[in-house]
């Protein structure tokens, strides 16, 4: 099949490029290290700060914590203990999962079907409709909140999980359709021709060919949508409300810290705790990228 050549890539790292001798690849290695270092430095500051004695956080730079790493009162786990023992954190974690997982899967599914239709099934009005869909990327979220809430009040969707799924889904759709369309439209045409000769319906072609081949793009979007929903505060505050039984993690964390408290030590620890899940998702999906490419080559 036409894809197979394309898909072999990535099986053996290093086969893609002619490997320079060590001396020549040294600049490459150094520049990679420098980039990684610079990119991580601000986050490293956050991580170090989250373990520092709160009294010192705004007194000395976080790197001084590393310099004086062996001073007894330099480090503490109390920041994390405080955040974890915070009011309502367990329920908030569950709520975050309840909100985030469907809010990631639903838009991907809807967008994948739509992108496939836009890319490969001719129908009248396809072009203009696609332009409108993608142009919606620009709608500023803040402008949409009040009109939607008006609908929600009438449909008693305010404060419900269903309501926030649909909101996150709709807000994520333009980007999802845009990304997936770009990817799917680049799939080779003969793939679809051979499927159609085999007698596959549009739905079967989608499920058995398009979807498996689109895993890298699906994974990429899944990551971004997951991150966006997981870390979202505004949409959750507006559509779920601040009520305790629907509180998500950012809301709970935010309530705990409070705008006037200036609790940097809790902020840093909280920011790190909320990062763990998205980072895990990224690592897991990164493996899925590679596997998706491999799966294509096996066929």
């Amino acid at each position, binding site marked *: 099949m036409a894809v197979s050549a394309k898909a072999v890539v990535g099986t053996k790292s290093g086969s893609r490029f002619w490997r320079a001798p060590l001396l020549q690849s040294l600049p490459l290695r150094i520049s990679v290290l420098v980039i990684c270092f610079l990119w991580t430095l601000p986050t490293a500051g956050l991580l170090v700060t989250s373990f520092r004695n709160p009294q010192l956080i705004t007194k000395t730079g976080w790197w001084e914590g590393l310099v004086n790493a062996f001073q007894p009162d330099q480090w503490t786990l109390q920041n994390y203990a405080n955040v974890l023992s915070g009011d309502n954190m367990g329920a908030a974690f569950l709520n975050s999962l309840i909100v985030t997982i469907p809010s990631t899967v639903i838009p991907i599914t809807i967008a994948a079907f739509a992108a496939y239709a836009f890319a490969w099934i001719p129908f009248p009005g396809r072009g203009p409709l696609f332009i409108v869909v993608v142009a919606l990327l620009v709608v500023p979220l803040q402008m949409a*909140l009040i009109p*939607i809430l008006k609908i929600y009040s009438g449909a008693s969707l305010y404060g419900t999980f269903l309501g926030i799924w649909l909101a996150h889904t709709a807000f994520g759709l333009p980007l999802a359709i845009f990304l997936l369309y770009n990817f799917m439209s680049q799939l080779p045409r003969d793939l679809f021709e051979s499927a159609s000769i085999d007698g596959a319906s549009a739905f079967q072609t989608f499920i058995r060919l398009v979807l498996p081949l689109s895993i890298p793009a699906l994974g990429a979007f899944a990551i971004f949508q997951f991150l966006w929903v997981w870390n979202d505060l505004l949409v959750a*505050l507006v559509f779920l409300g601040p009520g305790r039984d629907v509180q998500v993690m950012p809301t709970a964390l935010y*309530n705990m810290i409070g705008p006037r*408290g*200036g*609790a940097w030590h809790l902020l840093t620890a909280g920011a790190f705790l909320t990062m763990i899940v998205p980072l895990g998702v990224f690592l897991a999906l990164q493996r899925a990228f590679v596997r998706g490419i491999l799966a294509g080559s096996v066929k």
Partner: protein
Amino acid sequence: MGKKPGTMAAFATVLVLIAGACSPQSTPSATTPAATGPAATPGAGASAPASAPPAAKNLPALPTGYTELDQALTPGADGKMPFAGKKVSIQTQWTGGEATGFANAIADFASATGIGIQVDSIGSSHETVLKTRIEGGSPPDMAALAQPTGVLAYAAQGKVKDVATFMDAAKLKAEFPSTIGLTTDGAHIWSIPTKADVKSMIWYPVKAFAAAGYTVPKTWDELVTLADKIVAAGSKPFCVSAGGPGTATGWELTDWVEEVLAKTEDPQVTNDWISHKVTFQDPKIKAAFDKVGSLLFKDGYVDGGGPQIVNNDLKTVMDPMFNGDTATPGCWMQKIPVWYGPDFFPDRRVNGGDSKYKIGDDGDIGIFPFPNISDTFKGAEGSADSFMVLNDRPEVRAFAEFLATPEGLEGWIKTVGVLSPNVKVPAEWYAGNYKLKVANDIASGATAILFDASDLMPPAVGQGSFWTGISDWANSNGSNTDAVLKSIDESWPQ
């Protein structure tokens, strides 16, 4: 905004009543809380634990003068409370100590009536979430708002219930003579002003003052002399933050200008300034800016100067005052309102629990009134939060009416400490609270109390170009006053 009274001369009379509580023999201090009035729960000035229940129920005696409130507090024929099981939601921006105080204030009402009260404390997203909920048609039953202009904007859209339709307007006006006018429009009363703040305060390290032989300045000239002494001794006199960044605003600096204006000009000038009859470029306003600039931007008065003020974080700006357990302060004076307190002190901010630093004239951190400048005009600056009623149901009415009674704030007054503009609040409730005593001293010594002018200007100025302009001004260490004032004037909505 022109018709809104900016002057709250009568507010002074409210606070004068507090004086009774703080009569000489009580010498209140947060360090010896138990010594004061019988009803007082300890340590208002110093972070009282919220859990300590007041001895008496914080409930008004029947009849209260309000229909639904009487109903709510009277058991029905079946022995059940008529509103038991009903729910009322209220959205506020109070977090930390203020949230605790409000929770204390309403706890007894909730348990006595059986009404479940859900308090949504939103913090700095309060105004955004509130507007979205109101215009989206899912408003909370009630909401607190600090800016009268916001209340009036919602009222103009027909989103707010007129409390005069179910509460006795005459009673409200009699009990809140100083603040009810802020959100009254003809016969309509759009919100209930229940929480007041006095802003003309300067916080200072008591022991270090004594050790260095400094005395509390009573006049502007004494303030400057003291500042020069502090500079000569190698320290910095003032800690000032523009309020940000993060929640970048500029309100602390606008407060400084408003304070100086209240102490140099007739209150009418402030009123005309609010309605733009007096422009920002008016010599009187410019003089106030210049006077503030001569203090804050003078070399050595604020560590790092104007640009540093813009960057200083409200939460941490006073930390240098605690250097060496306040023995060797890095800055000596901060002008900040009465709601400030131990929540912001470095030890409590970091570790939670009680601050080891006590507020009081014989404690660690004291408060003195902002020094007078003119002999004629001794205005003080204040502000007020008020409650809007957004959904009209009997149990909401009952709760709104409860908050309008003196007892509506009793739990907060007696635990965390807060000022009520209700003249019926018995003076002894404030007993033992150092902050509130100073607030009283300030109010009773003032010739007029002026409501925060920037909160009464059109929001595009009061929370917009005034903030942008004053940030610009501080970044340039006050060297561009004319240009800044001109740009604010130009931004005034037609």
